[in-house]
Structure formats: structure tokens, C-alpha cells
């Protein structure tokens, strides 16, 4: 590898430095070179040895943690597609048409990922070049999260616009990686939600479902709505009314949205949000490596469960009667708890603050989803709201610390 490094240093690098023809692309060269080789920089002042961990490895491990959700999501896109066509039924074995499902999924997912990374990294490169600083690795994670929380049939240009908006407005205007207040990926999702409400609702959760409907090949009774979309219809209806009973049947054992199906994730939804199981595998990786905060993940889940129990006790409509465990395995709750709420930049920074932040995030997620059927995905709103609240939470935690110190001083003087 020394030879390769020598080649890069002697042959490639001069093109990007000094009077080199490509010196405008120095940032790109620098990012790629430091990707290949951690520079031989040694410690100067302060500590003489450094921990092996750096931001590249940290970000890479977050992506590794997303892989189960990504793979399952890819498979599920195909699975839902063939379900919608009636080629398979929910009773079919899992491995039926495995390859076909993966291919259908990959055709949808790969372009989403490419568009997200190309747009986001392009902007990052340009801005880093303008400011003359090195590329931060933050977008490696955001760029993967954005496609994973998109509806399957979202037009690619909308992904590009949303990514550009999120990177510029949520991150760069605040000073780039580490300075943002809102989670970048959720900002992209929220942007689409509010800028294109018409395109972002309805039948975009299943690949090609509108074309299938128009062509008359859609399976009988298949609507393609998500679990939360169905449940939203029960709000304002009597608990045991006709509509409610119809919807609730889907959530009973054996229905499309049974507890087990929601947990495994064989239901319609955004690309990689459907499987609570895959998200929990990711959570295990993040918690085990210490990269994701176990405090946030666990308190987020507890917050959701508590709200679920409260709704059960109220029982004002059918939506509220869904069991708390069922509530938290539906929609983007688990994916949000594991990958969105734990974003260390936009979450609370203090350990005590993380408990409060996570709990309220989970609590509000379920509350918003049930109270306001116009926002079926309460998780997005709840986490963004908590992002804004996080500095306030930290403020009170730190004020308590300051007061402790002041009290000690008063006692010492007295």
C-alpha cells in the first residue's frame, strides 16, 4: 500500500495543488485521499496518543446498523408489489419469489440512494470548496437515511429537491456538520410532507400501485394504504362502528397489520421503516458499539408505551384501543427511535437530558399520530419538535448543576 500512497502523492496530488490544473477540486481530492489513507498526522500538543476512533468509523458503523433495515426494506418493496398484484398472498411462504422481490426492491431503492447521495454530497463538496474546509462525514449517514424514510413511489426529483433543501437550510446555514438544530434527514421528509402534500399522500407506498389499479390488475380489496393511514380513518368514528370494525379486523391476528406482521415489517410503508425487528437489530449494533445512546432509544420506547397505555385507558376511538406494543411497532416509530432520535447533534447532549428528550419524543409520537389524523406519521413531527426542545432540556439540566455549585458556595461562606 506504500506504493499506492506514493503514486497518489507524487502523480495525482500535484494536479490538485499549487498551479495544478485541477486545484479547484482540491476538496474532492482531499476527501478521497483521506478516505483511502488516514493521514500520517501525529499529535502535536496535549495528549501524545489518540483513541483509534474517528468520525469516519463512527459514521460507517451507523450505516452498518442501517443495513438490516435497508435489506429488509428492499425485500419488502417487492413483497408488497407482488401482494398488490395478487401473485402471492399473505399466507405464502417468505422465501417465495425471493429474488424477484429483491430485484423489484433494488430497482426502487438504488436510484433513491444514488439521488440522495449525489445531491447531498454535491452540495457539501461545493460548500466545502467555497469555504476551503475539509468535508465532514456527517452526510454519509444523512444521505442513507433520506432514501430509507421516503415513500416507495416518490418521484426522484422530489428526493433531490428535498435533500438539497435539507442540506442547505437545515445544516449549512447553521454552519455545517455538528451545528444543525434539526435532524437533516427528517427535515428532508418534512419538507416533502409540507411542500408536496398531494403527492405525499395516497397511493405511493407500494411500487406501481396506481398503474396496477388503472390497469385493473390490482388484487381484490387491496388499497395500498399504510397501517397508520387505515387507522386515521377510525378517528371521529364510533368505537364499534362499521368503519372501525372493518379497520380493526386488519389489526387482529391473521390480518395484514397483525402484531406479528407489524413487528416483522411485512406491511406497506416507507422504504425501510416497516420492520421493527430490523430497527431493533440496528439498535443492538448502535448500543453495543456505544454510538447510539441507549438512554434515548430506551426512553423513547418507554414514552411511546406509556402514551399507548394512556390511550388504551381512554379508549375514545378505535385507534386508541390498539395495544401499546402494537402502536410502537407500527409506522416509523422504531426506525425513528433508533436512527433519528439518536442523532447526537440534534438530540439532548446531557445524560439526564437524553432521558427526558427520548421519553417525550416517544410520548408525543403516539399522541400526534392518534390526535391528528392529518399527520399520520407522528414520529417525524415529534422528533423534530424535540430537536427544537433539546437545548431547553439541556439548559435546565445544566442549571440544576450550576445551582448545586452555588449552594455549595453559600454553605462554604456561611
Amino acid at each position, binding site marked *: 500500500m506504500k506504493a499506492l500512497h506514493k503514486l497518489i502523492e507524487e502523480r495525482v496530488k500535484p494536479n490538485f495543488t499549487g498551479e495544478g490544473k485541477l486545484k479547484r477540486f482540491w476538496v474532492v481530492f482531499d476527501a478521497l485521499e483521506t478516505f483511502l489513507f488516514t493521514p500520517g498526522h501525529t499529535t502535536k500538543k496535549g*495528549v501524545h*496518543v489518540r*483513541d*483509534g*476512533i474517528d468520525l469516519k468509523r463512527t459514521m460507517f458503523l451507523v450505516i452498518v446498523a442501517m443495513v438490516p433495515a435497508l435489506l429488509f426494506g428492499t425485500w419488502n418493496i417487492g413483497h408488497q408489489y407482488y401482494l398488490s398484484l395478487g401473485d402471492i398472498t399473505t399466507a405464502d411462504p417468505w422465501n417465495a419469489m425471493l429474488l424477484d422481490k429483491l430485484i423489484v426492491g433494488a430497482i426502487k431503492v438504488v436510484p433513491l440512494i444514488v439521488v440522495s447521495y449525489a445531491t447531498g454530497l454535491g452540495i457539501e463538496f461545493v460548500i466545502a470548496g467555497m469555504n476551503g474546509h475539509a468535508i465532514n462525514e456527517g452526510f454519509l449517514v444523512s444521505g442513507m437515511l433520506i432514501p430509507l424514510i421516503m415513500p416507495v413511489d416518490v418521484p426522484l426529483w422530489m428526493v433531490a429537491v428535498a435533500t438539497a433543501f435539507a442540506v442547505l437550510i437545515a445544516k449549512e446555514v447553521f454552519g455545517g456538520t*455538528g451545528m444543525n438544530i434539526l435532524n437533516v434527514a427528517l427535515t428532508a421528509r418534512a419538507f416533502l410532507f409540507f411542500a408536496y402534500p398531494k403527492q405525499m399522500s395516497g397511493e405511493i407506498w407500494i411500487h406501481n400501485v396506481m398503474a396496477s389499479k388503472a390497469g385493473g390488475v390490482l388484487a381484490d380489496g387491496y388499497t395500498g394504504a399504510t397501517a397508520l393511514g387505515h387507522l386515521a380513518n377510525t378517528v371521529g368514528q364510533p368505537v364499534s362502528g362499521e368503519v372501525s370494525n372493518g379497520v380493526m379486523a386488519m389489526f387482529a391476528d391473521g390480518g395484514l397489520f397483525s402484531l406479528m406482521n407489524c413487528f416483522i415489517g411485512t406491511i406497506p410503508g416507507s422504504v425501510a421503516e416497516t420492520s421493527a425487528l430490523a430497527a431493533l437489530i440496528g439498535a443492538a449494533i448502535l448500543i453495543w458499539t456505544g454510538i447510539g445512546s441507549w438512554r434515548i432509544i430506551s426512553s423513547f420506547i418507554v414514552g411511546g408505551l406509556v402514551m399507548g397505555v394512556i390511550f388504551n385507558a381512554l379508549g375514545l376511538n378505535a385507534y386508541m384501543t390498539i395495544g401499546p406494543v402494537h402502536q410502537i411497532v407500527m409506522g416509523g416509530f422504531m426506525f425513528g427511535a433508533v436512527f433519528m432520535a439518536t442523532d*447526537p447533534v440534534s438530540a439532548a447532549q446531557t445524560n439526564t437530558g437524553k432521558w427526558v428528550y427520548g421519553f417525550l419524543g416517544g410520548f408525543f409520537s403516539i399522541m400526534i399520530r392518534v390526535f391528528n389524523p392529518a399527520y399520520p406519521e407522528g414520529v417525524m413531527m415529534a422528533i423534530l419538535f424535540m430537536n427544537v426542545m433539546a437545548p431547553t432540556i439541556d439548559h435546565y439540566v*445544566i442549571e440544576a448543576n450550576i445551582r448545586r*455549585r452555588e449552594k455549595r458556595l453559600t454553605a462554604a461562606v456561611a
Partner: protein
Amino acid sequence: MPASVKIRKGLDIRLKGGAHGDTHALSAADRFSIHPTDFHGLIPRMAVKAGTEVKAGDVLFTDKKNPEIQFVSAISGTAQEPVRGEKRRILRVDVVAGGTGEVTFPGLQTTASAGDVRSAMLAHGFWPMLRQRPFDVMPGPESQPRDIFVSAYDSAPLAPSAAQALGDRMESFRQGLTFLNALLDGGKKVQLGIEAGDDTFSGVTEADITSFSGPHPAGNVGVQIHEVAPMNKGEVVWTIGLQDVANLGEGLTAGRFVGQRTVALTGSRSQPALLSTTIGTPMAHIAKDRVSMEDTRVISGNVLTGTERGEDGALGFFDHQVTCIPEGHEPLFFLTKGWLGPGFDKFSASRAFPTWLMPRGKEYDLNTNNNGEERAFVVSGQYDAVFPFDIYPVQLIKSIMVGDIDRMEKLGIYEVAPEDFALCEYVCTSKLAVQGIVRKGLDQMIEEFA
């Protein structure tokens, strides 16, 4: 039974090359050097001209702000032209060995008064052994401490144990404690922090003893102050090293300057040994025949807080350890040794590396590679895990970065020294220079109160 404190937050970095066995006496060096830079903020005023003959105990320079504070030579010989750096700042004051004789003064009885002890320490070179909190600087000559803390437990990587460092100087150590007690108001005693299970100090009655267990920085005097009697605004606490207490005891009793130092030569690039010498010994003399110098960083002190002295530098005034580790300027290919490599040779506090899978006894040969580039601050909770103070480290550091004096004070800057943040700096994913930031904050506070 002494009171005991268990520290839970921290990290023991397991390095190769600890020093064990008997202590060897190092031959006399041909030079004695003091780096005024060891005393933060000190501006020296030279008291001798180049070429002057000096005896051991003769004044070399004084503190420009407090001329009562004298810095003396530990050996007799010829004073040299000071080594200067940018803006003619004095970096090193040398005495080349030769000649005999030493400065003597009437020795003190154990019943000596506070005034006698103080003036003897000021006049005969013992005062600079003291450091004070807040601000981690040398105390002024009029300074009156609330407490004096001595840590007899250095928990830093490869540091010598108290028994190794103190050797057979227990009698002098106890005399030193007696003199220090005389300086304290209200019949207070020196606070001595020891390692849990260490019975070296079982007979010591001249100090209030607290035992500490747990990972580094359990032995840092700052942590011990925080646990035993945390500092408040306006309070001053002195600290002094274990061996300097013995030097003080021996010197004030005998009426001469004593600057003995047992040094642990450690690190993977050295043949580890315990060496008995004096303060101000050139690093080259300590390293001679025992260190393979090629591509080696020779550090006075430990890998977390020590200083690189360069070829001609000398042992730091407060150091009792020299660490020799390989330099790390090889670029690391990402799949083998770099950020995506398996990383069996890396020691990490995070489980992103397989350190946690390795047997507890495995020792690491770490080099000086930065292991990544400086980045924006992203990861949270990392510093808290290795920082055993009831202080929020990240928030304090941010308040320093924006220069908010009021906030620094509220967040507890009076209690800390840069060394307390050394582990934060080690574990930092974003590779920030945390100790440097804290030093900057303390300097801002000093200016504010000046």
C-alpha cells in the same frame, strides 16, 4: 481505615513498557536545566550571568512578578546563556556541571512556625514545587491555601507506584508533611490521597488519608480534591507532588536544597527501568543506552499530559516519568490499519474497535498517530464517560471557546486543570485539543482577575 472513594468514570490505557524491579542510581549528569515553561505564566528574571560559577542551591532566576520566589540550581557548576525562543522568551536555563559546594541555611525543627517554613521555601527554591487551584499555576508568595492536597497515587498510563516513587524516603516525606501542616490554618492537616490497598502510608499520621480506587484519573489530584472537599469560588488549594514533599522535608531539615527524583523510564521504545536522579536531568542522559531513538517520541511525563522535550531538553520539574513511544507518521490504508481496518492494534474506549474483546491483560504499543482528522463536534456523552467530576465537560469547553467568563465560572472552571481533561482529549472522536482549550479558559480567568 482511611476513608475510601471509588471512582467509576475513567479509562486505563494499557500501554506496553511498565517499569518494575529495583531502582538504579543514575550517574551524575553533566548538565542541569530548568524549563521556565514548566511553570505556566512564569516570566523569569535571570539572577546569574552566563559564565558565573554557581553552587547547588544558588539562585538562577526569580519570578518577575514575585521576586521573592527563587529558582535554584540543583547542582554546582557554570551558568550558561539561557536558551531563548520567539520574542526572546526564555525556554531553558542551563548549568554545566563542575565544581563543588552547596548553599546551606539553618535547618528547621519540626516545630517551625508557618512564617519560617514559608520564607525558607521561598528563599531556597522549594516554593516552585507548589501548584495551586484554581488556574493550575504556581501560588503567589502571599497565598494562603484552604487545604494542601498530595496525591500519592499516579493512575496515569505506566506511571510509577507510590512505593516505587518514594523508595526509602518515608522519613523525609513525613517531615515534609509536618512542614506543610504548619502552613495550614486552624490545625488542619495535609490531605493525602492514596491508592486503595496501598499500605505504604499506613504509619503516616501527619495527613488525613483518603484511598481511591477505579480507573484513571482516580489518582489525579483534581479528582481527589473534588471528592474530598470540592473547591468553591474564592478558595485556594495547593497541591504538591509526592517526591517533592520528601524533598521539602529533607531539605528544610538539613538546611539545603534537595531536588531528588526517582524516574520511571517507560514505554515500548525503552528498556523500562526505575532510575534515581535529580530534577533537571537532561532527557538524553536518562535515555542513554536505554531507548532506541530512531523515530521515537521521548516524553517527559506520561502520554496524556507529558511534554516532548526535544533532543536537548530536560526532565520536567514536576515529572517522575519518561515515556518513549513510536512516532506514527505512516499514512494508514483504510482497510488494513486505517479507519475501516479490524484495529486489533488500537486501544479504544469505544466498542467500535475490538479492544473490549481482548483479554484484560493485553498491553498495547500505541504510536503518536492522530488516528483521524479534526472534525466538527458531533458525538455526545463521550467526555462524560471518562470525566469523574460533577461538571459538564462539553458545556464548560464550549463556554471557554466563546470566551464567556461568567458561564465558565458557573460551570465549575475553578476546580479543573488541563490534566483533568486529558482523557476527554484522548477519546475525542473529533480530535479536538481539549487540554489546550481548558488552558486557554484558565488563562482568560487569570486575566479577568488580574
